[in-house]
């Protein structure tokens, strides 16, 4: 049944949580939610369940009065309270559907805070407009990252040999891996945002309100002088690269997020070219190990049908990787709308003309489940909510994307780069082979596989 009004089991959530996540990737930053308390509480809860880590953020605590008369007083009061109690270097304010609907202007209010002397010397308040009724959590992430670039980057007129890498929505483990690859290549980069060492902080017996990780303000300022930007993801990262180009004339290249073999290949080549450094042998060897496993285990992948759901910048390279593995991505949904996304998917799916793909309105997990019932699959890939479909249909399930609320690992082990490709291979093989073992008749139960 086609639906027009009702979304059932969404494959997306709203903008502000993306803005909150992005803001946690600035060192010494307190994300601030300009809206009702519930928004902040829900976002913190969801991020906390996903990371099993402290997620600090504040709220303008709107009541009915603020909703009628505007939220300026609440935001000004918040800024004052936050600097005196929590002493951040930066407050990153994002809006909500409530403050957007009443028309609060964050630029004007933060300017007023500055004019009124509510922002201490050397401290910053940045903002991003993130109405929940536009786009998805990915849009909110992109808007906050764009806000960082626009509001911090400075062009001194003298270019450096630094490369900006704008991280699309990825895990702290992924950001750590990107930095590690760049360091292996001896490329000088600044990665932003950077949630590694923020949302994977060690247990030390002490709670660091502002953990040691995060891109620093100085680093963000320096992005305006970088020689170029690589945006990892056309949906979640490119808008910030465009903003940097506009403001500071930093040319950029947009790449798929480096998930799987081919997308990582392109990233490595782009980074090598941008840095003017050859690809080190260690990276080539790591790639070789991935291809080796792909070849050794090809029989378990080839022709297997896969259903997947999630966020655009992860779905695109993942679909390509599944094709590289010889698998058949037959059903794909993402709640996030976007022309760039649709166009790129069309290119990737030229190799899979059989695939059902839908994004945007009513592209939800209920639809995906219906598709799966009509054409069953061998594997399901997506966030935690997929476990209900996997259980109903008895499909091997790999957790991938956001949020993952019932397993750990995603924040510690990368999905990007060649080591990320290896991890995905191991996870996919693990669930497929476990299923084969579980379903095998006594006489067909194999020792060696």
């Amino acid at each position, binding site marked *: *049944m086609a*639906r*027009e*009004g*009702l*979304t*059932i*089991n*969404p494959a*997306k*959530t*709203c*903008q*502000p949580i993306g803005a909150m996540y992005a803001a946690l990737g600035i060192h010494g930053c307190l994300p*601030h939610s300009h*809206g*009702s*308390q*519930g*928004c902040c*509480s*829900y976002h*913190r809860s*969801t991020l*906390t369940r996903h990371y099993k*880590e*402290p*997620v*600090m*953020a*504040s*709220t303008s*605590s*709107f*009541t*009915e*009065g*603020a*909703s009628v008369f505007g939220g300026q007083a609440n*935001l000004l*009061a*918040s800024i*004052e*309270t936050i600097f*005196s*109690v929590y002493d951040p270097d930066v407050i990153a304010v994002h809006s909500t*559907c*409530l403050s957007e*609907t009443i028309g609060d202007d964050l630029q004007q209010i933060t300017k007023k805070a500055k004019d009124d002397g509510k922002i201490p010397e050397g401290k910053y308040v940045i903002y991003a407009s993130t109405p*929940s*009724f*536009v786009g998805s959590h990915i849009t909110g992430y992109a808007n906050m990252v764009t806000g960082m670039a626009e509001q911090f980057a400075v062009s001194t007129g003298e270019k450096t040999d630094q490369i900006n890498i704008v991280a699309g929505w990825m895990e702290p483990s992924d950001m750590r891996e990107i930095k590690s690859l760049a360091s292996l290549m001896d490329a000088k980069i600044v990665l932003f945002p950077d949630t590694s060492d923020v949302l994977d902080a060690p*247990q030390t*017996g*002490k*709670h660091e309100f502002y953990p040691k990780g995060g891109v620093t303000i100085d680093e963000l300022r320096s992005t305006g002088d970088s020689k170029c930007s690589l945006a990892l993801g056309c949906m979640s990262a490119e808008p910030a690269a465009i903003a940097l180009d506009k403001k500071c004339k930093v040319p950029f290249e947009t790449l798929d997020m480096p998930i799987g073999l081919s997308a990582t290949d392109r990233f490595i080549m782009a980074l090598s070219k941008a840095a003017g450094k050859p690809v080190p042998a260690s990276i080539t060897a790591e790639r070789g190990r991935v291809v080796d496993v792909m070849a050794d285990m090809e029989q378990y992948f080839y022709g297997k049908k896969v259903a997947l759901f999630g966020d655009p910048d992860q779905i695109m390279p993942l679909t390509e990787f599944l094709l590289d593995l010889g698998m058949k991505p037959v059903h794909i949904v993402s709640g996030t709308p976007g022309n760039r996304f649709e166009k790129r998917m069309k290119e990737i799916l030229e190799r899979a003309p059989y695939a059902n793909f839908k994004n945007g*309105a*009513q592209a939800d997990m*209920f639809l995906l489940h219906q598709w799966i019932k009509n054409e069953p699959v061998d594997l399901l890939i997506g966030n935690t*909510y997929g476990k209900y479909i996997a259980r109903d249909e008895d499909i091997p399930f790999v957790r991938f994307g956001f949020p993952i609320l019932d397993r750990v690992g995603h924040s510690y082990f990368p999905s990007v780069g060649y080591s990320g490709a290896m991890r995905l291979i191991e996870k996919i093989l693990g669930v497929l082979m476990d299923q084969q073992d579980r379903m095998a008749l006594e006489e067909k139960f194999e020792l060696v596989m």
Partner: protein
Amino acid sequence: MEAKVLIPDPSRIKEELINKYPAKVAKKRSKSIVINDPETVPEVQANVRTVPGIITQRGCSYAGCKGVVLGPTRDIVNIVHGPIGCSFYAWLTRRNQTRPEKPTDENYITYCFSTDMQEEHVVFGGEKKLKVAIQEAYDLFHPKAIAIFSTCPVGLIGDDVHAASREMKEKLGDCNVFGFSCEGYRGVSQSAGHHIANNGVFKHMVGNNNTPAEGKFKLNLLGEYNIGGDAFEIERIFEKCGITLVASFSGNSTVRAIENAHMADLNVILCHRSINYMGDMMEVKYGIPWMKVNFVGAESSAKSLRKIAEYFGDEELKARIEAVIAEETPKVQAIIDEIRPRTEGKTAMLFVGGSRAHHYQDLFAELGMTTLAAGYEFAHRDDYEGREVLPKIKIDADSKNIEELKVSADPELYKPRKSEAELEELKAKGLEINGYEGMMKQMQKKSLVIDDVSHYESEKLIELYKPDIFCAGIKEKYVVQKMGVPLKQLHSYDYGGPYTGFEGAINFYKDIDRMVNNPVWKLIKAPWEKEESGSLEASYVTQ
């Protein structure tokens, strides 16, 4: 009673908690931080706005309405009217377990429904889309009931969810459709949403089905949401005792049961904060008294069962309940005997909910642990000080916006279950009939009572008191644990439970034992970071 463990001077601690705040904030917070005296019970400022910018535990009205009260009923299709997030975040995150009688029975708990409001709807209105969504939900599932929940923009743009619901109810014919104006900005916390939910359930569901309920001792369980299977354990005990559970508000409940709830002869209330309105309204309209009980803690469960027996005044029931208690108690006692030597003398803090911070103190007491400080996230003064303060509570602007239903006796269905004299007699026997004594009378002298505790205050408290365990929710969990102190989640139970009744008490004792005595807390420092390890280099030199 003085605390058994040494506690620091609370007035100094109170100073420390607020001295970093700007003057105005400090003044406001100081009224919500109170040094307890169970004899004289000081006033606590509660149910007031959180200072903007303060990191609070609180959520919103929508969370209280959809998430808490309506969420657990399995056969209502709950459609959230608004942008996608609100429905997404409340999707399966509250662990309301439910057990349909037959596998083919309706269960929508695992679904998330939303109108996914877009910019065009904010500009031109979303009612049309809402009605389409209701029709689609009906066509797909044919549910008995569809509930609509308003999110922040809905109230502001003026969508009338009540009119849309009425229209669709009429159009569909065999589906009860009703709306809730539970926009997130209403009130100061989840509490406003509880009240709005109570009103809606009372208006649109209770009383719809007058089929007499079977059974001799018929009651409703109010304010029990079956998190981690809590209601299952209470149901097990009731069944053993021969008590008929007509309806539960709302753990493991169905539309039919709630519609039939007015056929019960008693309402027992667990979470006073979230559901006391329902108790009051059912008393006025149908003549069913309510009684405060507590099934958190083995002793409290036994006490509550005895109160129920006393209420019904039936000797056979009393005997059966005593037999059940006698059967259940040895299992519980065996576990206490084993665990208590490891928990005795340890300390706890509880900052959670609107009733849990009170009730869970019973379980800690059973383990020989002391509650040093406690407070609620969204309660009112009566939950702290007892319902006798109700006439003294000033109704502020935020509370005034929440509708108070005008309820009167139903001309046909009002039937007082007990006479005034009988009720007085029961009260004299210590039954909390239509009453609740609150948290503070049970807490020790000089313990701290803090309403709507902030993140800053929690960290300070831990630093100053070094409790053995801290109870709060998911947002606090890993912050506190990073400080080397285990945090027990009392919203989600850390995915364990049930914690009610006798089986639940056993689960809780074991969990607390595991948490406070877990070897991991001694592994935080690397061997080379410990002072006594000396210098590795030096030891090599001497070899």
